[in-house]
């Protein structure tokens, strides 16, 4: 177990190293920090002096080590636009994005498991066929179109829900302000959460259904029936546990996709999260913020994937963590 953990953490560090290299390469090549600092009205001599002072004439390795050292201490540079530490800017936006992801995850997990299980157990009912039909339409509509459609119907035509922003948020602690404390906050987060969940939900319903149907054909399910086990126990203990194992793995992979979709959702709903901020940073060529976003998102990916792998190892008795570490 410990060896496996060490191996996994080591791999995570290796991936973070590659991400930081990419981040540094972007930092090094994109935009000119001097111009952001002093503008264009300074003579070439002063520029050279400043370059030396800032260490911009050092070798690539020295500069990278400085960059990585600062990054490890939480210093990812200063945003050109906000004139604030880039990490602070991102951390301020992080809760908005996380709440959105949380809302979508609740919708996905809460619906995909019961719906997936139902359609697997009763594949031929009208309801199941309807669900499968809707699900294939669901995976064919891009997230941003679902978002636009919902705004058009529920905000523009009927005016039931607001179309942009977070509405009334309540401060919790640090940079965290929550949508879940006021009715207005709930109204604001509902449409974006549904939009964010819209492509993932049918994907998971289909995945769970397919896995479950396969498991229900297995010998051990047949054997459980032959032992006279009650149907609900066969479905929810024997079959579901085996169904969810591969789903966990896929879920881990989908977390990355989900973060990408937040950029789309946040753009459509002008949700003040990190995705929206990132696109603004791109338009302003705010290099430190772009790089900081890359590193923070990379970090989130690596951490969640490592955790998902560990959970998989803990849930699945046939994975021998001790042996995998060797």
């Amino acid at each position, binding site marked *: 177990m410990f060896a496996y953990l060490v191996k996994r953490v080591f791999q995570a560090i290796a991936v973070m190293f590659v991400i930081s290299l990419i981040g540094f390469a972007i930092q090094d090549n994109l935009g000119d920090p001097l111009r952001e600092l002093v503008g264009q009205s300074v003579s070439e001599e002063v520029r050279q002096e400043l370059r030396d002072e800032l260490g911009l004439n050092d070798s690539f390795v020295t500069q990278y080590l400085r960059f990585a050292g600062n990054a490890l201490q939480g210093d990812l540079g200063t945003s050109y636009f906000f004139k604030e530490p880039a990490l602070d800017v991102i951390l301020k936006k992080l809760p908005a994005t996380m709440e959105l992801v949380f809302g979508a995850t609740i919708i996905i997990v809460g619906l995909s498991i019961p719906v997936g299980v139902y359609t697997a157990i009763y594949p031929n009912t009208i309801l199941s066929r309807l669900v499968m039909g809707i699900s294939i339409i669901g995976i064919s509509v891009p997230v941003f179109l679902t978002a636009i459609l919902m705004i058009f119907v529920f905000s523009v035509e009927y005016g039931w829900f607001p179309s942009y922003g977070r509405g009334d948020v309540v401060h919790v602690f640090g940079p965290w302000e929550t949508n879940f404390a006021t009715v207005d906050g709930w109204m604001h987060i509902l449409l974006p959460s549904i939009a964010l969940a819209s492509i993932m939900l049918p994907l998971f319903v289909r995945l769970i259904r397919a896995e479950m149907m396969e498991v229900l054909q297995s*010998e*051990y399910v*047949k054997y459980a029936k*032959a*032992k*006279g086990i009650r149907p609900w126990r066969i479905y929810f203990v024997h079959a579901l546990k*085996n169904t969810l194992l591969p789903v966990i793995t896929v879920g881990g992979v989908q977390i990355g996709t989900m973060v990408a979709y937040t950029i789309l959702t946040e753009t459509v709903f002008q949700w003040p999260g990190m995705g929206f901020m990132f696109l603004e940073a791109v338009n302003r060529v705010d290099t430190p913020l772009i790089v900081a976003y890359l590193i923070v998102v990379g970090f989130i990916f690596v951490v969640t994937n490592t955790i998902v792998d560990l959970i998989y190892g803990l849930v699945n*008795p*046939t994975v021998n963590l001790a042996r995998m570490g060797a």
Partner: protein
Amino acid sequence: MSLLSVRDLSVKFAMRDNTVTALNQISFDLAKGERLGIVGESGAGKSITGFALMNLLSRPGFVDSGKILFQGDDIAQMSDAQMRRIRGNQMAMIFQDPMVTLNPVLTIGQQMVETLMAHRKLSKSEAEQIAIVKLREVYIPSPAERLNQYPHELSGGMRQRIIIAIALLLDPQLIIADEPTTALDVTIQADIMELLLELCETNKVGLILITHDLGVVSQMTERTLVMYAGRIIEAGRTREIINDPQHPYTQGLINALPQQTAPGQRLKQIPGNMPSLTAIPNGCPFSPRCEYVQDHCRTEAPKTVQYTHVEVACHEVHRLHSDKAEEMNR
């Protein structure tokens, strides 16, 4: 009254545009505590018979007609809830491949306890005590520790012992064992069979042993059914079927055994293959491979008749017998 009485049971499979007959009007009886072997090549319908008796045929298979009377009640007509109470309780099944039979994510203990608790009002610890006793009966070392282990931590032979223990958990009237040792190493096959025989004898449990191995049948069972292409073609006491088979197919099976062949000689195989269920020939299904075949064999299905001490479905059995007697006399 017999424990199990199967009457004219037909099982069909619904295919793309037609149905295929997998079991064609089979009938047999099993007395309390009796051990019956069902023999035949793969595809003869042995396993389907086993699953039909448990009312566990999976789509697209279904019981088309006939009765399966278990202690007087017709299993084929039972609701799922009624059937659930019998499965694992009065009638248990041992599957072919122990490597895939146990659920990989549940412990041995969970899989044993749930079986007991599905049929009896017991506390978890009472159920565990029974499980330990049964594990000891199948000679599993340190049974209490096994309860917390997962199937993948145990060998195939060990798992099959556990499956036998699970079959015995609720003291059933009948155990159906479908090729219980084919998936195991040759070295432990005999051990498992011996164990099964011992337990059935001491507990007076009826056994239906489905196998392709005539040797196993001769050691384990009192009566034997020989199946071919979804029909029972010969039935009787095991000793008599082995020593004096009447149906040309059964004779072929026995002659093909290595024991029947002198060293250095080629094994005497029956020429040809068993027909697939979609292409069963008219008349006697064995006719294309039969050396005694006559014209009417190809058009008319043979009826089951009592001949000497067995029941046999063959038009030519009389002639065959006199031929053989002549041969002996010569």
